[in-house]
């Protein structure tokens, strides 16, 4: 975490001349100097860094160069959109991906298995935005069933705006969620398949079969459980992928989320937003990794006992 905040700060301080960007070309030199002084840009680097950290912790994220609004506000505005989108796509990818993975691991041939495999191969090869465009074209333009941009109807609960509570909102959510979910889905499926295949080849599975345990139990109780361990790590990483690729999806569907915010900040070299986004994302990842570690602890007795022993 510390490393990431350092990086963000470096970005903030050293990239470009913030003042120049902020005030435009016409201000006089004296005014620029005054602004510099005010912003504390002339203080020693260490002081600036600690101030930066302090600000972060207290939630003061500074101001965007581009829009002059407080960044914290902007993020809160956009966060629900991204979170809901991400959540639904993750759900889709897990609900479809895991069973598909199990199925193709156990059945090595047959029409259905092969079709699924080919579909997933294509699935990882299509860039997210192409899927988005394709879906827009088919469902939005040609068939006109589903809305193709914006969030549609939202309901406000406190400061959180949600799509879930209205039909219109849900409909608007479908296309972007599927777009985002497809890539993750194929990754999950392939991983589950590969892990299960590995597990099915181990000695203890052979021993279980030799003891006459029925195949169903072998597959689910023994094989699946043992495959889950690495799958969990990947799911954790996937959550990250979802956040990352939301940038693309939000761009295609004009979904007003954090991803779009970040994208704009890159386009306009809006450094403060970039650095805050960076820090936030890192925070999310650290939390996810923590959760994954805890899950490992719960599931794998070897990890549990090692920790207790030391």
């Amino acid at each position: 975490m510390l490393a990431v905040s350092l990086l963000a700060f470096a970005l903030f301080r050293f990239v470009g001349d913030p003042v120049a960007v902020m005030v435009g070309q016409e201000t006089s030199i004296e005014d620029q100097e005054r602004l510099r002084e005010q912003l504390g840009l002339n203080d020693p680097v260490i002081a600036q860094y600690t101030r930066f950290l302090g600000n972060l912790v207290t939630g003061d994220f500074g101001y965007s160069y581009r829009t002059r609004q407080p960044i914290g506000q902007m993020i809160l505005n956009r966060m629900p959109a991204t979170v809901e989108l991400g959540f639904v796509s993750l759900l889709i990818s897990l609900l479809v991906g895991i069973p598909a993975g199990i199925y193709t691991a156990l059945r090595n041939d047959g029409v259905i298995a092969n079709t699924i495999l080919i579909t997933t191969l294509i699935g990882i090869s299509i860039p997210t935005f192409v899927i988005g465009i394709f879906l827009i074209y088919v469902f939005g333009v040609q068939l006109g069933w589903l809305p193709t941009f914006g969030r549609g109807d939202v309901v406000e609960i406190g400061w959180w705006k949600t799509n879930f509570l209205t039909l219109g909102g849900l409909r608007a959510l479908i296309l972007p969620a599927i777009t985002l979910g497809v890539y993750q889905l194929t990754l999950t499926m392939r991983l589950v398949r590969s892990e299960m295949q590995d597990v099915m080849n181990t000695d203890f599975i052979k021993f279980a079969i030799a003891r006459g345990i029925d195949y169903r139990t072998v597959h689910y109780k023994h094989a699946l459980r043992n495959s889950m361990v690495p799958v969990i790590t990947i799911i954790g990483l996937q959550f990250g992928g979802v956040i990352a690729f939301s940038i693309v999806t939000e761009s295609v569907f004009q979904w007003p989320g954090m991803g779009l915010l970040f994208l704009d900040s890159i386009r306009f070299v809006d450094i403060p937003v970039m650095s805050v986004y960076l820090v936030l994302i890192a925070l999310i990842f650290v939390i996810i990794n923590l959760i994954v570690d805890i899950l490992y602890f719960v599931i794998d007795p070897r990890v549990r006992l090692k920790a207790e022993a030391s």
Partner: protein
Amino acid sequence: MGALLGVTDLTVHYPTRFGIFTAIDGINLSLEPGQIHGLVGESGAGKSTIGAAIIGLIPSPGYISRGDIKLLGQSLPGLSQKAYHKLRGAKISMIFQDPQTSLNPLLTIEDQLVETIRQHSDDNYQKARDKAVALLEETGIENAESRMGEYPHQFSGGMRQRVVIALALCTDPDLIIADEPTTALDVAIQAQILDLIRRLAHDRGVGFLLITHDIGVIAEITDSVSVLRGGKLMEEGKTAQVLGHPRHDYTKALMAAVPRLEEKLDRFANILGDEPSLPTPELLWKVDGASDQFATEWLLQGNRHTASEGPVLSVRDLDVTFYTDRQFSLGKGNAVRALQGISLDVHPGQVLGVIGESGSGKSTLAKAIVGLVRPSAGRIEFNGSELPLGRERARTHPSRRKIQMVFQDPYSSLNNRRKIEDIIGEPIRFFDLARDKREQRRIVASVLDLVGMPQRAMLKFPHQFSGGQRQRIAIARALVARPEFLICDEPTSALDVSIQAQILNLLKDLQAQFGLSILFISHNLAVVRQMSDQVVVLKSGRLMESDNSDDFFARPSDAYSRRLLAETPSLDLLLGT
């Protein structure tokens, strides 16, 4: 035909891209209830295939192409998958070599035991659990009741194998197929497990099919045995008769190759002809001027160590301590004392045998001598002068050439991506032992000749050769540096018995010819007996005893040594020596 198991003319084929491969051919076998029958053979003989065929788990694409298997009168091959699966556990069960991978690491043993019991009976949970506890006690696990909730990795190797056996028993099968059940275990534990099997066969009337490559094990507990080679049955009958008075040539050769514990022979009698390693035209290929005589002359040139006073290698009070890594912080973790206070001497032209089980520190000793590991205390002297230890030994230190090593695993001791010529040529080049490329080639070809390999091998890659052949190449590589001291770390442990005999003969010949001083490390007492003049015993990093070989094997003074000797399965009882 056997009342329990009757196998007639069993043949299993595997279609491969090279054609149809016959794994086993026309095997006949019979077993009575309570009888322990051994299936012995070297690697590739097909023993595991027979086991897999009986339990109906031949890995695809293999299939039974001919023959019949009758279990308690019922014919097996024609059964449907479902019917076959019902038999598994109920009538036939199987246990494997490695207890660590045989148990599901994520489930408690209670879970695994109870599930198995309830699979085959109507017992409720509590009743099943009670049965499980009883079984664990029967297989010799103490505090069975309290250990039920534990996980597999909390048991030691031997205990784990007992759990595995308990698991196989809890369905009350009539036949248990044991595929190399003790190969991964230490000698002492092996003795206990074999004892357990014998007891179970006797008390419960369970028939055992014991598959192994270890003739000592066969001698210990089997009532009858089948000898296999290349998928075919060579000989079978009562164990005492087959091993003691073998009728078939192969069995005779096999028995001759087994290292004896009771006396040191000059050489192993080699009745089996060597399999040609290359097609005949290639065998005739030679490099100009290369021959084994040339190799002998060339190698003798470098050996200037005349019989001087004092030992070649002298180790004094050697201590090696490893620190485990701490997980979350820097700095040292727990200390593991791999070696403590080791002192030994190797005299010129002698072979010092180092006996030790796994964890005794024998490999660490080897690594300390060659500089791969840095001792925390003690000194090592080579030819009278002190050897710098660990990292302090410069890469150009002369001892690097004079001390060479032959490793255990022939499949990882040669770089798979390099030609044999380059592998053997590297020390020549590195130590500047040849004038030019041409002379280097000549030396490489000659040394290959010397170790019994065709010269043409130098153009090939390691994967084209078998384990024994690779070990010869490894020996060639060690020799070519013209060493004065050779360390052999379990050089034949990974090889079949007959190949082992050949390699040991080779080592004996080379040692005699070039007066090499050798440190010979092995866990196999019989092998050490055959090779060494002096012997030391290591246990948990300490030196337990040091003696000359004859005295040691006749009457070891240390209690641990005595126990080791007693527990080594030996053929003495059988052969009445």
